[in-house]
């Protein structure tokens, strides 16, 4: 570290004196770098985006379901609905079968369970009539009679399993990470140089070191998991790229904070890896939910008691000189608690518990005055509960109810109401309530498509520029193209999450990924649209890009939910590796 530090200082001083001695050349370098940055960013992000969107995993097959006089259907999920409706996973289009008749589930240990969902004509297995909503263990070959229709379950043979493995290995593979890694590294090196050119003496050597360390961390991460046989790294690449922008934003606006930001990235990646491995086991994950709920409640209560006020919201807690936002961590738990397996979706009690937990979170956030985060929790709740129930009218009802509540809040919180008054005409309030938004747009537009170069910006002198207004910050220093690419990356993660449902093992991971996607997207929406006057300014962070340790940590950890939905063969570290079928014992 000491040697590293000395070298960094040497490099820093070398660039500094070069720039001081050759101001015109330094200027031309910046002029050129702006192009290089955009080209590299387009290359890096489009490759990742294309790879994520173009590969669709061939579903794994866990067994076959035979219907009397019918065809056999492959069972492609751990959780399957059997029923008459088209939306059932195993459709039996006969009148005597209920629309959603039963659930057929596979346990990780290979056992199968069957549950009749209170169907009209009932289910008989091996001559035993099933009690509705009760779980039964069944075996391949058991005779299943649903509404008079004879069905049976067949396991998968070794040969079939090997065929399938071969089919899956024919799927388009995730893009190889190496070229992208080289491109990101080039981006990082040029970023470091440009920051010194742009800021001169104001830049700190420790900021440079943080960027170099991030580069090392990225290579280490990819090489390690590549060696472990994992293939999909697009999401991490996107996150590493966005983290690079984050470090550059921090270095430009608050150089002394850059190293802290890097540490948050390390912690975030560690938490993500831990969560990925934890999520591999569905039963374990399901069991941890009450613990997470309890911890979240305690964290929020702790926050309510000891919170300190910052920018109008008491959502910060300081322990031993280290301050963080508990609500950011609760976001992670909120997704996990909201997610549910297919079986749980047919249990009303579950959704009420989740609704109560959500209400508690919203209430706590409202009491802290953090209405932006409360809104994010609320929208995530809406999406998750809709995914769970499919009840559109309830969704509308909740929105209307919440809207009424919102109007009440506006009446009692004049400072929020004033933001609504400014909304849509910030230019008329350019030096009062529209101060931040007008600066965001002015400086952001000043960046043009290519930006004016890292470290050269002026938005950084405006309050909350590297958090709430970070979109304008990126527009100014990095240009509109890169700023928009960052948003497209987050959109891509969401599309990927939705896309992966087809091959999803359990609805738990699917709901988790969609919940995380909602959080990312809605948060981004509030952040960007608030800063540029398409929404009232709420003061929330842009995932991965805004400065702030807790936000960075959460963004990385949230990635685990996306990783857990990545069903491409051997791609994700959140999915237990497929065993070679020839070694399976029967």
């Amino acid at each position: 570290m000491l040697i590293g530090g000395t070298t960094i200082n040497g490099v820093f001083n070398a660039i500094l004196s070069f720039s001081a001695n050759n101001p015109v050349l330094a200027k031309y370098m910046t002029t050129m770098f702006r192009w290089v940055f955009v080209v590299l960013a387009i290359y890096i992000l489009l490759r990742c985006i294309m790879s994520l969107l173009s590969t669709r995993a061939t579903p794994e097959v866990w067994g076959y379901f035979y219907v009397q006089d019918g065809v056999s259907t492959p069972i492609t999920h751990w959780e399957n609905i059997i029923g008459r409706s088209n939306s059932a996973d195993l459709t039996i289009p006969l009148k005597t079968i209920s629309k959603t008749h039963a659930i057929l589930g596979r346990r990780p240990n290979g056992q199968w369970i069957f549950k009749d969902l209170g169907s009209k004509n009932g289910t008989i297995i091996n001559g035993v009539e099933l009690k509705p909503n009760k779980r039964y263990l069944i075996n391949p070959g058991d005779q299943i009679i649903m509404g008079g229709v004879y069905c049976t379950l067949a396991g998968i043979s070794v040969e079939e399993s090997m065929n399938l493995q071969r089919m899956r290995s024919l799927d388009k593979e995730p893009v190889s990470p190496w070229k992208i890694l080289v491109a990101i590294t080039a981006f990082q090196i040029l970023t470091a140089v440009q920051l010194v050119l742009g800021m001169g003496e104001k830049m700190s050597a420790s900021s440079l070191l943080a960027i170099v360390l991030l580069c090392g961390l990225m290579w280490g991460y990819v090489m390690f998991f590549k060696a472990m046989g994992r293939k999909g790294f697009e999401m991490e690449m996107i996150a590493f790229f966005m983290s690079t922008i984050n470090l550059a934003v921090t270095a430009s606006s608050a150089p002394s904070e850059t190293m802290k930001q890097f540490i948050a990235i390390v912690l975030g990646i560690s938490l993500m890896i831990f969560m990925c491995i934890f999520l591999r086991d569905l039963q374990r994950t399901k069991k941890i939910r009450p613990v997470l709920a309890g911890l979240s409640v305690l964290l929020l209560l702790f926050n309510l008691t000891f919170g300190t006020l910052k920018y109008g919201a008491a959502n910060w807690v300081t322990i031993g000189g280290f301050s963080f936002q508990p609500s950011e961590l609760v976001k992670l738990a909120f997704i996990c608690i909201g997610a549910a397996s297919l079986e749980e979706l047919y249990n009303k009690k579950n959704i009420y518990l989740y609704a109560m937990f959500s209400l508690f979170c919203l209430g706590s956030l409202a009491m802290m005055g953090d209405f932006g985060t409360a809104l994010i929790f609320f929208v995530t709740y809406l999406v998750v509960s809709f995914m769970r129930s499919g009840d559109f009218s309830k969704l509308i009802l909740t929105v209307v109810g919440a809207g009424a509540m919102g109007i009440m809040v506006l009446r009692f919180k004049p400072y929020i109401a004033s933001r609504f008054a400014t909304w849509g005409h910030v230019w008329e309030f350019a030096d009062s309530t529209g101060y931040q938004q007008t600066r965001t747009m002015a400086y952001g537009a000043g960046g043009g498509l290519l930006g004016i170069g890292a470290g050269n910006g002026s938005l950084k002198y405006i309050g909350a520029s590297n958090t709430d207004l970070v979109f304008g910050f990126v527009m100014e220093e990095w240009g509109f193209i890169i700023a928009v690419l960052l948003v497209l990356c987050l959109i891509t993660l969401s599309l990927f999450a939705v896309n992966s449902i087809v091959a999803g093992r359990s609805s738990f991971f699917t709901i988790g990924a969609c919940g995380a996607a909602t959080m990312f997207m809605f948060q981004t929406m509030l952040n960007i649209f608030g800063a540029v006057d398409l929404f009232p300014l709420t003061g929330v962070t842009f995932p991965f890009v805004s400065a702030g340790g807790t936000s960075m940590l959460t963004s990385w950890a949230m990635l685990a939910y996306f990783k857990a939905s990545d069903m491409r063969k051997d791609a994700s570290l959140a999915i237990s590796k497929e065993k070679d079928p020839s070694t399976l014992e029967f």
Partner: protein
Amino acid sequence: MKKLERRAAICLALAAVLFLGIVYFGWKFVTHGGEWASFYGNTQIYTNGMINRGTIYDRNGELLLNCTPDGIQYSSDSAIRKSTVHAVGDPKGNVATGAINMWKDQLIGYDILNGTYDTTSEGKSITLTIDSKANKTAYNALNGREGTVGVFNYKTGEVMCMVSTPTFDPAGTEPSDPNSSVYFNTFLMGTLTPGSTFKLVTAAAAYDTLDDIGSFGFTCDGTNTYEGEKIKCTSNHGHVNFETALAKSCNGAFGSLTRQVGPATMGEYVKELGFTDSINVDGIETAAGSFTFPENSPIDLSWAGIGQYQDLVNPCAMMVYVGSIANEGEAVEPTLLKGSNFLDRISSGKSLGRYLDKNTADKLKQMMKYDVQMTYGEGNFPGLDIYAKSGTAEVGTSKSNSWFVGFIDDPKHPYAFVVWIKGAGTGYTAAGPVARNVLNTLIAEN
């Protein structure tokens, strides 16, 4: 699981909202980016509320204004500063028509690709079409009187001279009242009583619409009582025909012509000759003139055709009209920004359409020459092939306002001009020499 696939559409909807929001913002960024970037709060380009980059030159490369982060540098000549301030503008933006206000984007060097990032080492600049030496000549010739002088090239539309007084020295202290008259550009934004210069309009209408215009005759007794009311002339003009009526500027004769043309046709002519519309000078919308041609009051109608009554013209519009007479009836849009590329330099100006038939234009041109020969004296304009009409607008004050409008027929210097001086008395004696000096300076310098 299939159910979830369908329900996940809500996630896609959210993604669509985010995406559409970004597209919408992108559209606003493209259409409003320049405006946003040139917001006064942008310290990249403003220091203490004053623009801190960009240079403005006149047509001959004379520096008029140079903005730097350390302050603003003007021309070293105070007469040039004062005479060009309405074209150049002031950094505080009090002069609404100033280049610094109107074409801020170009000074800042904003373009969508680079934003405000300056890719050059010397900064961006604007070159105006005006000649600062001619402006200075005009300013000096006005000699402290309130007035305005405008000259443009009636082929290319380039405004060669634009001065408005009262004015101020931008390097000195500016009046704190943003509505102060010194900030007002009379040439572009003023509307004034045209007096006899308006007879050029009435003449065009009469020539086009009266079949027996060739045999028109009127006997002026100096008082010209019509229906019990007087239409006074400066003197007893005796018998005049169409040509001599204009040369002698006979009110009685033009009152008669106006009544023959009729109110409806007069209204059509002021509209077709561009007097009732704004002219777009590179984004500056000039003030539109206004006229009333009453149906039921022959006397008021007569005065309206003589350029009195409620007539108000914009000096720039008058210049464009006389330019169209010189240009065989074709009107050219005035411009203040000098084109930077070769194509802009050789191509002719943007047409505002045909104001007059070629015949009518030729007839008016011939009559304006006759006017100069008979009334103003060609000897007063040595070396200039000048065509003109003067005006002495009565606005109820003791001294009338002087007008002198016209053009010179010189293929190398196709200039049309308008001079207006407040309270200077008889048109051609007061305003004529100002026009002569400015034209001579322009010919010498260009």
